[in-house]
């Protein structure tokens, strides 16, 4: 039995005991022997110790879900969705944007210190780039359509009007439901292909302790294929993606998830993990594009400048050279 069913079972027992206790002293002086019955107030008292309880009875229609008379837990979900979720979402997304703008203003674009060498080295092959962009493309649509559910009503609805907003939200809902699948595939592929380069080690701790060369003075300790920061992104995507996948599949298949209480739970997990992941991805997008010279090439053409590679992944470059994968020249000299 799932937890919800246990609770409901326990609760029915409690309720029955309560009803019997109330009914027991009803003596012969009572007009109606069943006059004393459970009241809403008693039910709500019981609820104080068990907010996820439902009051269930028996119905004579086939739909057994209709047997739930009251389920005040919806109120907690409402206050989560309208309060906590909105606040966490706003703080995570806006907070990260503020941090990134501030970082750009203070630190500026991180240049290749030695300047571009003109020579390149292959960082990501075509398949790696494919799985990255598959995941990234889906994630952007999933993130926007997801944010629309929580923030669209306040931000977009007043701008475009009810009917246009509904049309957009329907399209967003269908995109969300269907792009979830290629997103899950992308996360699974990245996990399988990149796990071997993403096992955390002591060097990562030193890298993170040094602020990755992003914060403070001095350069970060040399890294192998992925540095500490990239490993954090990898694990955020893998673990966050797994949490989003599990919760999302439960939400997509209401018949698997048990009852509405389970749906509320998975909805909360999905929402919180999603906004945190959006915040992490904003930072990832920043540093992979305008934040750092030469970084975008890794996922663009797959060929990065040798000096960029040496500055950020010195150990990896050494390994590649050792394996005989000599850097190719970006500018082909005339022969």
């Amino acid at each position, binding site marked *: 039995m799932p937890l919800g069913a246990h609770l409901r079972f326990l609760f029915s027992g409690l309720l*029955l005991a309560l009803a019997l206790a109330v009914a027991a002293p009803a003596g012969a002086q009572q007009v109606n022997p069943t006059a004393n019955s459970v009241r809403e*107030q008693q039910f709500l008292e019981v609820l104080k110790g068990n907010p996820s309880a439902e009051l269930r009875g028996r119905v*004579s229609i086939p*739909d057994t879900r209709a047997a739930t008379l*009251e389920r005040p837990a919806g*109120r907690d979900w409402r206050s989560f*969705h309208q309060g906590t979720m909105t606040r966490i979402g706003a703080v995570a997304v806006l907070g990260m944007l503020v941090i990134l703008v501030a970082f750009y203003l203070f630190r500026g674009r991180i240049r290749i210190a030695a300047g571009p060498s003109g020579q390149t080295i292959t960082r990501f092959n075509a398949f790696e780039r494919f799985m990255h962009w598959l995941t990234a493309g889906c994630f952007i649509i999933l993130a926007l359509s997801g944010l629309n559910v929580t923030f669209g009503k306040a931000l977009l609805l007043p701008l475009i009007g009810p009917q246009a907003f509904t049309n957009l939200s329907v399209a967003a809902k269908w995109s969300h439901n269907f792009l979830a699948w290629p997103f899950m595939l992308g996360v699974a592929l990245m996990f399988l292909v990149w796990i071997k380069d993403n096992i955390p080690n002591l060097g990562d701790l030193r890298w993170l302790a040094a602020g990755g060369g992003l914060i403070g003075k001095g350069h970060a300790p040399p890294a192998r294929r992925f540095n500490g920061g990239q490993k954090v992104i990898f694990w955020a995507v893998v673990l966050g993606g797994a949490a989003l996948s599990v919760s999302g599949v439960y939400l*997509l298949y209401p018949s698997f998830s048990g009852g509405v209480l389970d749906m509320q739970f998975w909805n909360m997990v999905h929402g919180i993990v999603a906004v945190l992941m959006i915040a992490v991805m904003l930072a990832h997008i920043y540093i992979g594009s305008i934040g750092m010279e030469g970084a975008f090439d890794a996922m663009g053409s797959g060929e990065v400048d040798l000096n960029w590679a040496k500055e950020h992944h010195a150990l990896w470059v050494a390994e590649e050279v050792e394996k005989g994968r000599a850097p190719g020249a970006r500018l082909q000299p005339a022969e």
Partner: protein
Amino acid sequence: MARMKFLCDADRCIECNACVTACKNENDVPWGINRRRVVTINDGKPGERSVSMACMHCTDAPCAAVCPVDCFYTTADAVVLHNKDLCIGCGYCFYACPFGAPQYPKLSNFGSRGKMDKCTYCAGGPEVDLSPAEFQKYGSNRLAEGKLPLCAEMCSTKALLAGDGEIIAQIYKERVVKRGYGSGAWGWQTAYRETIAI
């Protein structure tokens, strides 16, 4: 204007389910959807009670608060209605509702629930009053004809009361005083944040 409410006097309800049938018939409610149902608590045990339950047309309705497309509205009579043209069938109102009132014509996977349907207090929807479009989407609009919801109007034991909250509370109070007991107005604490003081 009146503040319309439902009140089920559980000490009178005999679980005949006529309110359920009346609702389905009056509003042409499709198969699989029950805007109203009768739930029996402690079935077969001392203190057994049946309560007829539908959308309670809550004060500060949770469904309206969580709707991502804002398709709910409250009429001048405090009846909570929704616009099916705007509903995207996301299911959030169903998560939030304490009474399990929102229903969906489809409960298939992939989020294809269809447009939400629930009790309209026999007050139709946003279409022109008593128009065929209104009937087709929302069912009857008895309020526009000066009548109360059919479930309550035809309740044989007058257990289910519909009308202005103060008037039906007064009727219930008189009953309780006269017979000497009452199991309370089910759902009122949750829907209206108030009970009927006897």
